[in-house]
């Protein structure tokens, strides 16, 4: 009681919040700087004071370019379909790795995880050659396929923990209740791992959306994604930092909105299965 009423007791929460605020400022500064840049006119771009005349010119310029808007759409389609494919393949895989005891189970699970170890730049040349032979360069399917390297391991490893947490008794009970195995899977198991699926799918989407190396090397004019498209504002003679910032802001917006919408699921999903699994 004494501590709460004293000067120190009053200062404590203030100090705590001040430190948190300062850290948040530090962590978010690049983002804040990006937002500021996107509203700055070109001539004030390099001033280090925070005083400037806000303008929407940058956004007008970026959105006026048909290529960029199209690339946003491309990214949405490719990333969305990539996540969808990962879900179709990954959910059963995660179930199998979580539930069944079979030879080489851990090896297979680890192999999936190891896809995330290698930097993309390391495999891009062989992949390029393979894609060239298969004629998959600059195709939507080609990018969806290669994006599995990004999204599938993540999805499998998050969901595996969720499936491991479900008691096998529940499956037995549902089977005895008169359901076939497939019905048990869809009616009982999937609803139970829904928070995990939502969280994993969202993370996968963010990683796919942000993918640059694969999209740059294996994509082309017709499948250009927003990450690649942004580089067009970095011409060799002039760099429109304001345009780049505006484009980056526009590209980040869908992720931010999505994450905010399902924040509840995200926290629950990630702290539930993934940590334990």
């Amino acid at each position, binding site marked *: 009681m004494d501590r709460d009423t004293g000067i120190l007791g009053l200062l404590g929460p203030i100090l705590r919040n001040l430190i948190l605020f300062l850290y948040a400022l530090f962590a978010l500064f690049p983002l804040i700087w990006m937002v500021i840049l996107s509203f700055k006119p070109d001539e004030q771009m390099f001033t280090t004071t925070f005083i400037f005349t806000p303008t929407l010119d940058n956004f007008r310029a970026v959105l006026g370019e048909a290529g960029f808007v199209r690339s946003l759409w491309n990214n949405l389609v490719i990333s969305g379909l990539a996540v969808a494919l990962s879900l179709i393949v990954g959910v059963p895989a995660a179930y199998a790795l979580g539930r069944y*005891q079979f030879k080489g189970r851990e090896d297979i699970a680890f192999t999936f995880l190891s896809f995330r170890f290698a930097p993309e730049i390391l495999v891009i040349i062989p992949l390029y050659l393979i894609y060239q032979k298969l004629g998959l360069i600059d195709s939507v399917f080609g990018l969806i396929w290669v994006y599995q390297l990004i999204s599938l391991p993540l999805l499998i490893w998050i969901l595996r923990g969720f499936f491991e947490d479900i*008691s096998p*008794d*529940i499956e*037995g*009970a*549902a*089977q*005895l*209740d*008169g*359901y*076939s195995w497939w*019905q048990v899977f869809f009616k*009982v198991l999937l*609803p*139970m791992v829904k928070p995990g699926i939502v969280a994993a799918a969202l993370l996968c989407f963010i990683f796919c959306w942000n993918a640059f190396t694969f999209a740059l090397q294996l994509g082309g004019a017709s499948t250009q994604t927003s990450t690649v498209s942004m580089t067009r504002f970095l011409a060799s003679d002039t760099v429109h930092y304001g345009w780049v910032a505006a484009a980056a802001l526009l590209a980040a917006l869908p992720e931010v909105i999505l994450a905010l919408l399902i924040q509840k699921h995200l926290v629950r999903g990630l702290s539930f299965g993934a940590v334990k699994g």
Partner: protein
Amino acid sequence: MASVELQGLTKFYHKRRGVENLSLDIHDKEFMAVFGPAGAGKTTTLNLIAGIVTPNSGTVKLGGRDIGGLEPADRNVAMVFESYALYPQFNVYDNMAFPLRSPKFKMPEDKIKERVTHHAKVMRIDHLLQRPIQALSNGQRQRTALGRALVRNPDVFLLDEPLSHLDAKLRHSMRAELKEMRTQLGTTTIYVTHDYLEAMSLGDRVAVLNQGHLLQLASPDDVYFRPASIDVAKFFGDPEVNIFDATLKTSGGSQISVQMLGENIPLALPPDVVQILNEKHTSKIQVGVRPPDVRIAPEGDKQAFHATIYSFEPLGTKSILTLKAVDGSFVRALVDGHLTFEIDRRTQFCIDPHLLIIFDGQSQKFLARSADSIENS
């Protein structure tokens, strides 16, 4: 109409034994208690009957029909799992209605409602129907799980330690309730438990399992009074049965007496026991004495064994007394609660030879017990 017949069932999980060569015959409408310590293969037995695991060899017959190839859904067997296995995304009502909405047992919603509310009343959870599973106590979850098994009139009930997660008081009242339910239902039931009291109070017959093998299949009385082996005797009864090495002495023609605990006190065996011993030509035996059958004797009793008091645990109406006999072996006795004993004091006790359980010294299998001892107790 559903008897359950297990013939030579064997199930190994990789190298680990679940059950081995298990044969069990459960009559129609019988309440069979399957008793055993952890790892005895009790749950495996239930899972084999339910079809959740498939045996390595052996057959399962339900009502005389081999159901080995059938999916769990097609066996019309209901099971209550030790973990209850309720669906966390549903509330109590939907959990109980789940089997009735399945393609297998489908019925119209108004009928489902009728059934679920009826059985919820029986289980006394009708006021909880809209509650999510997370908001239930263990006892309520257990009732929900039972209710879910009850709603669809299965041929066989499989209950896997349904009371083990309840606190002692609730367990006691649920045991009484189950006993009442059992007479009302009249469905073949297989009840797995590691609590010998549950097994004895509920079962028409008790199957004693250990390490995947069937040790004994008999009525509760027989399991307690005529245990098939020393292991079985030790499983039933608390405090545990006393087992002593003993020697047989023949004296005067047909008289056989037992000597044990390092004293020269011949306990004359009753004639029916003597007859069995003579038939089997056994010389080396072990005897079992239940702690309630060890009586503190008054001083000067010529037939009494000498001992010092090693420990004394009062438990209210009864007390557990551990005595150290002359040869150093410990003897557990269950005595009246109003008696008090001082540790390290000398005392003496006597054992009625009619109450001895005689085991073969080599095989540790049951040999004999006097018939009139059981009628008296």
